[in-house]
């Protein structure tokens, strides 16, 4: 019984975090048809902004999280306006956008190494302390992380499905020509999507810096899990991505609790492969025409 609770609790924590990372990735795929390989590096930008603010400048945690999200959005803004806009809509976008992602990612990762050095660092928790339900240890810090993640996922879903600009993002993703004929300025929409996506990655990076250690490898790890979730949920589908995040989170957590930590990642990959055999376009995958 404790094991079950432990597994569910872990799954919700992982799922919330995966969801934040994966949603950014899926939004960019939907709107720009670009796999943003710099997404993990944007996560790191959030981590290190939070680290700098909290550990070095002694800024309180809550403003530090907000500034980390905003700061990462500014980086996203720069990537879009300075780099991606130059190749947008031109032949070779598929490969070009991948290269921009790799290049920006390397530039960010190496800059972080230069500035902060190779040593692993530690951040204080958002709220220290634990309590127990039976023998399951609940960490206040994890609860805050989950709450912030869930609130941002909910706000984003409402924005996408209810507001004029959110619907416009969906419209551009689903039928770009028709979107332009409605008067939707696609380039502005791309910029908004990039900023939102970067802000989510940055916020995830900042939040998780309070859970894990602060180190450069965490960006790549976050990216891999986001990719698994996005593919699993069906690239470009917001609803599918959120579901997939919690399914993958729970799967990973159950494997860890019942079969040991070493089985988690291989298990998740195996599951993803099986899933892709059964449903090639993902859980809520849009038709082929939508995805390509």
């Amino acid at each position, binding site marked *: 019984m404790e094991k079950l609770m432990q597994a569910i609790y872990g799954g919700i924590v992982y799922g919330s975090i995966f969801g934040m990372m994966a949603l950014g990735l899926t939004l960019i795929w939907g709107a720009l048809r670009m796999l943003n390989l710099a997404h993990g590096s944007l996560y790191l930008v959030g981590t290190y902004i939070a680290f700098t603010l909290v550990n070095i400048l002694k800024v309180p945690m809550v403003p530090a999280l907000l500034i980390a999200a905003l700061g990462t959005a500014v980086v996203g803004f720069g990537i879009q306006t300075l780099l991606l806009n130059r190749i947008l809509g031109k032949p070779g976008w598929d490969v070009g956008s991948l290269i921009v992602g790799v290049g920006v990612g390397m530039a960010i990762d190496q800059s972080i190494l230069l500035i902060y050095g190779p040593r692993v660092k530690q951040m204080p928790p958002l709220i220290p302390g634990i309590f127990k339900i039976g023998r399951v240890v609940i960490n206040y810090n994890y609860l805050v992380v989950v709450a912030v993640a869930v609130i941002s996922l909910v706000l984003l879903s409402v924005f996408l499905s209810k507001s004029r600009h959110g619907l416009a993002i*969906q419209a551009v993703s*689903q039928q770009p020509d028709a979107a332009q004929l*409605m*008067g939707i300025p696609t380039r502005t929409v791309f910029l908004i999507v990039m900023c939102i996506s970067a802000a989510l990655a940055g916020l995830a990076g900042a939040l998780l810096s309070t859970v894990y250690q602060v180190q450069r490898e965490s960006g790549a790890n976050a990216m891999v899990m986001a990719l698994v979730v996005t593919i699993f949920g069906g690239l470009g589908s917001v609803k599918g991505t959120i579901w997939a995040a919690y399914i993958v989170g729970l799967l990973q957590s159950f494997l860890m609790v019942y079969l040991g930590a070493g089985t988690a990642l291989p298990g998740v990959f195996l599951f993803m492969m099986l899933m892709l055999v059964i449903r090639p376009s993902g859980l809520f995958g849009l038709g082929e025409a*939508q995805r390509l």
Partner: protein
Amino acid sequence: MLKVTDLEAGYGGSVVLHGVSLEVRDGEAVVILGPNGHGKTTLLRTISGLIRPSAGRIEFDGKVLSDMSPADIVATGVVHIPQGDLPFPELTVLENLLMGAYLPEAWKQRKEKLEQVYELFPVLRERSRQLARSLSGGERRMLALGRGLMSNAKLLMVDEPSLGLAPFLIEEVYRKLHDINKSGLSVLLADENADHIAGFADRVYLLEMGSIVGEGTAEDMLKNEALLAAYLG
């Protein structure tokens, strides 16, 4: 109101439109007739800014459209209902319609506009919560027209509204378009055959291989059946 002069446009290296000139006056219904693949869609997409012209000029109400973005062109009141409808498949009918009113001016009046569109196409009200991809062909056509009408259009450009519909539905679509035109909106329509010109069009242009090869009032064109027959086969 719309004046196209010596327009040249195409895809990459290949030129499709070779110096097209035409005009739509206030309140008119103008039909461009042309067989398969002769450039009707290319012409409309160039007017709405999706394709950059390589030469020539497009003016609307004194504004030069030829170097504006599609979004700015919509804002002038030139609204294009594309061939094949191009609905937003994963949005509901209501959300599709709302996107038609995306620009701020139209967005402010979206409630009233929605009522008008529902009045004209009652089936859209019934289907309002359904995803667009679940609609039948006829319903999709109504949605495409309704979505276009949600804007502050002054000139409605419609690309092959008869495409892929059963004959009785084609009649209905043309009746609606006629009503829309009579309510004061100018209409520029592209089609492959002359079946629906009578009672609808004021003037007709014949487009062949990317050039205008004939022009006249609908009556003259219909009298000149020999020409139409030779031309449209």
